[in-house]
């Protein structure tokens, strides 16, 4: 009898919690907290183990800078293979930004105002290059460069491949910005006597500058992290990037030097993206939420 009563009291209490529309979403909160831990903790652990004194990346043997600076051959500062990988990574990132962002920005402006069937076709192709799985693009370019057009594998092929894959980022970001700006500012400038070219240079470009800066940051970070295209179009050790180093080492017996190399990638991409976001916010005071969501759309 009393047992039954207790169960009923418990039942109503439980119903009270679940029936209350203003209850705190404890379960969802726990899932979210758990997810964030699960998603970020492994990376934090990998960063910490780059400071391991021993050769292991799973057994902690004390703190040291051995794999960063101290070891004369196996630290990322002194290992010639790692230094070459770092140079290659950042060289590709900077060059890709320099090519992809201007071409993409111009494309975005043109496609925003040019209507008609060819424009739709061009836009469709651009978006297709945005969603196609990277391995398809990488292997297709490899086959192109080794059959029809002789482009040497290595830096030239990698640069062309990365630019093709990244071209759509500035297009998508700048177009989103153009849609929110609308044509009114340029029209006003031209009503006041500006030539079309002047209106673009003095009105439109400053207005889309934040989006262009955001593209620079995102393309740079994305190229630093790229693996598939860079691997498909590489030619031997001289064109290996940090990502390829992580990949090949992880299939042999990686030392914490690889953790250090990965940490270098992590720090540069996060700094560049954070920098891009800050610049974006500076240009768009009062629109931070919109800016953040622009970033998240990508």
């Amino acid at each position, binding site marked *: 009898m009393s047992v039954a009563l207790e169960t009923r009291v418990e039942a109503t209490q439980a119903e009270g919690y679940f029936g209350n529309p203003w209850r705190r979403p404890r379960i969802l909160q726990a899932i979210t907290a758990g997810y964030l831990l699960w998603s970020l903790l492994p990376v934090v*652990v990998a960063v910490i183990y780059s400071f391991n004194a021993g050769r292991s990346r799973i057994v902690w043997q004390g703190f040291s800078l051995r794999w960063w600076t101290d070891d004369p051959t196996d630290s990322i500062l002194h290992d010639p293979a790692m230094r070459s990988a770092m140079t290659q990574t950042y060289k590709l990132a900077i060059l890709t930004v320099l090519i992809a962002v201007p071409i993409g920005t111009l494309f975005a402006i043109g496609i925003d105002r040019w209507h008609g069937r060819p424009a739709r076709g061009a836009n469709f192709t651009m978006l297709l290059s945005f969603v196609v799985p990277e391995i398809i693009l990488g292997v297709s370019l490899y086959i192109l460069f080794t059959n029809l057009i002789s482009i040497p594998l290595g830096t030239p092929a990698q640069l062309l491949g990365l630019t093709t894959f990244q071209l759509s980022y500035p297009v998508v970001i700048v177009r989103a910005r153009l849609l929110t700006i609308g044509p009114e500012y340029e029209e006003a400038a031209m009503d006041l006597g500006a030539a079309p070219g002047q209106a673009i240079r003095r009105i439109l470009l400053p207005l889309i500058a934040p989006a262009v800066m955001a593209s620079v940051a995102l393309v740079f970070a994305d190229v630093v992290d790229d693996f598939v295209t860079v691997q498909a179009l590489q030619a031997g050790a001289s064109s290996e990037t940090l990502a390829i180093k992580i990949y090949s080492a992880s299939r042999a017996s990686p030392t914490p030097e690889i953790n250090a190399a990965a940490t270098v990638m992590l720090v540069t991409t996060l700094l560049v993206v954070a920098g891009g976001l800050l610049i974006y916010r500076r240009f768009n005071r009062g629109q931070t939420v919109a800016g953040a969501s622009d970033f998240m759309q990508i």
Partner: protein
Amino acid sequence: MQSGVWYPRWYWPSFTITGIVWLTVLFVLPAYVVLSVAFGAVDFEHFGQPVPYYAPWWWSFSTFNETLTQFYQGSAIYQAPLIRTFVYVSSASVICLVLGYAVAYFTARCTSKNKGLILVLLVAPLWISYLMRIYAWQGLLDAGGPLNVVLDPFGFGDTDFLSGLHITVILGLVYGYIPFMILPLYASLDRIQESLLEAGRDLGANGRQTFWRVTFPLSRPAILTGIVIVTLPMFGDYYTNDLLGSSKTSMFGNLISAQREFTGGSTRMASLVLILSVIVMVPMMYYLRETRRAAERGA
């Protein structure tokens, strides 16, 4: 533009010309060369180098057919990876969806002052190299590594998680791609106005009914977008299995990347890439159609 200024017809198209030329030469043309190699011949006197047939009327299907038979004839060595790919991709996307929905829902309804921080933490994995994130797990899962120690009381002390377990590769895929699922879901759930939910409740629906009859239908487009965004790269993935699995868990992408080891692998690679393109065509076209519709709605 509707202003009084007259633009020559070529004015705006000229802005796009470099982009169009670039895409034509380095995106459309490679696709054509892949077709020409897949439907071309093989030079057996030169290590099986491809002999592409660039004229469509010469295309022969013998090379391509030979690749195709590997999926269903004889020892059918390509069949298992193909089936595995579909099983892995669908289970990983379902897990991504369920877990991602919970996280996105909580974040969208979250009113705490930490919301900005949660958002930053949700986005952060996108800017951490995929390989580094999987590499980090490889360390944790290594034999004798932290996970063996932590899970020892549950009987997983001696489990070799990296020996080619389905669950390891599936969870690896989930881990890698779930941020891409959470973001569109969050963006969509965040846009649902509170007044709609209140209206549902005022009309007598309880919490669960409001969710299934208001929130969920409103987020359906984002669910489909999210699924497409995570499945597309998963279909081409080979590195997750290379780091966390073995030949027992190889996927379609591994078939392609394995051809790199052979001198005459190009031909086989072209055929496989062609097959992969056909597989991902439907989700890709869906995504493009949705993007166009969203743009039309916005304009």
